[in-house]
């Protein structure tokens, strides 16, 4: 188990005054197409970061690189001191730290809502079933779905499924939560219930990275905004400034189209 002792060592070097996610000079190519062309930024623990930008600008790819769903070609991504761009990467250790919520919820349709939340801690982390169950019930309550524990994903609305997906990620006790356009597939009425859940999390101090098109929400909860276009970060800043006085022409144009 050399890899686990190594990660323990790198973990020990990480202190809360250093960024929990540190992205440096990241390049990612799909064939000839370069999706990410040198992205660099840091996220501190407890920060809420929103990444916006036109479709195809590499926002989702960036999030997927952070938990190693997509390998990067160049650069470095560190999560709590652990290098993601490393052939000897301990994926389990990384994915324990990073929770991810997807646009299409991606719940396991053959399991009930509660089982979806309980599965990974039991099957992957081998935690005690009774303990996990207790925690899962609390999480269901936290995402305001108590009473829906025994419903199958197919019996839940999109917004409810997305909240189960959030609870499922939280059950792994992650340090960082990644949200990949989590409200893009939802009806306008149900968007709010998901956003409220995310805001609760942010207020509790969870480090969150969101790719989103909900500008109002981003302005409200973000500590930092990043605008990506063509695989680079064009502009960044605290939301107040970012929305009031965008400097770059592309940011202006994008915000003009959306707002």
């Amino acid at each position, binding site marked *: 188990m050399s890899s686990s002792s190594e990660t323990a060592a790198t973990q020990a070097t990480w202190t809360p005054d250093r960024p929990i996610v540190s992205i440096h000079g990241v390049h990612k190519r799909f064939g000839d197409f370069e999706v990410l062309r040198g992205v660099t930024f840091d996220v501190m623990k407890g920060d809420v970061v929103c990444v916006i930008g036109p479709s195809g600008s590499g926002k989702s790819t960036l999030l997927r690189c952070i938990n190693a769903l997509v390998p990067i070609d160049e650069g470095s991504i560190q999560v709590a001191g652990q290098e993601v761009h490393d052939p000897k990467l301990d994926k389990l250790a990384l994915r324990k730290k990073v929770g991810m919520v997807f646009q299409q919820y991606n719940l396991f349709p*053959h399991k009930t809502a509660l089982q979806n939340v309980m599965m990974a801690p039991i099957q992957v982390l081998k935690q005690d079933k009774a303990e996990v169950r207790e925690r899962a019930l609390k999480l269901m309550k936290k995402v305001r779905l108590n009473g829906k524990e025994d419903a199958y994903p197919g*019996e839940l609305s999109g917004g409810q499924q997305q909240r189960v997906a959030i609870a499922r990620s939280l059950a792994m006790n992650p340090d960082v939560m990644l949200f990949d356009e989590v409200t893009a597939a939802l009806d306008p009425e149900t968007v709010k219930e998901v956003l409220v859940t995310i805001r609760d999390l942010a207020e509790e101090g969870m480090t969150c990275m969101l790719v989103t098109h909900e500008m109002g929400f981003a302005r409200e909860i973000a500590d930092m905004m990043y605008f990506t276009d063509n695989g680079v970060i064009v502009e960044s800043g605290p939301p107040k400034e970012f929305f009031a006085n965008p400097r770059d022409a592309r940011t202006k144009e994008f915000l003009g189209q959306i707002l």
Partner: protein
Amino acid sequence: MEDFFQWFRWLYDETGINLTILYDSFDRERMVRGFFNTIYLSLICLALSVVIGLVGAWLQGSPLKWTRRIVQGYIQLFRNTPPLVQMYFFFFALGSLMPRMENEYGIMEPVLSNWHWAIISLSFFAGAFNVEIFRSGIEAVPRSTVEAAESLGYTRLKTYIYVVLPLAFRVCLPALNNNLVNLVKTTTLAYAIAVPEMLYVANQIWSDSVNVPEMMTFLLLAYVVLVGLLVHVMNRWERAMRLPGYGV
């Protein structure tokens, strides 16, 4: 019970409808054995063909090109040739190459009997279709669901066991049912290499008693009941596995 059997002797005397398998204890016993041989052959081949299907579908996902090609070749060979030809090939072509062993009466005998060859050829025949059926089921599981499992720390094997296979199985159950029904019906081909299943026994009986129409009618009805039972069980299973609000 004996009165019930003797009624069929009376039926024969009165009408000429000759159901020896009911009133003649010798014929009755052979037919019962034939019936159980059919069930035995069916169950063994069902189980083996499902195993072949699962292993084949797993190998088809292999990164090695030649592994995938061999599986593909196997499927083509068994899907594109008649099952009777396959059985003859196994029994007469491969069977004649097998070493022989002395049996308990001191007679030289091939190591693999006609029973073995029937089981092998039928299992591989149905297995070829099962590989394709399972593969289609595995491919029907959305990539995004697999990614969700990966992002929760599942390894490839654990993702397969806990997420992909349970979903794939539900998708391919109707197609699997069809193939298994087909397999049960195809066991009658074992007749051709003298495996004493129902058709073979029926043939023996009508050679002795010249009651071909009666035996053919009986056979037809027996298979209606046998396959009907299998279909009923599989349908119930399919219903029990159905997920509320999924895939409708």
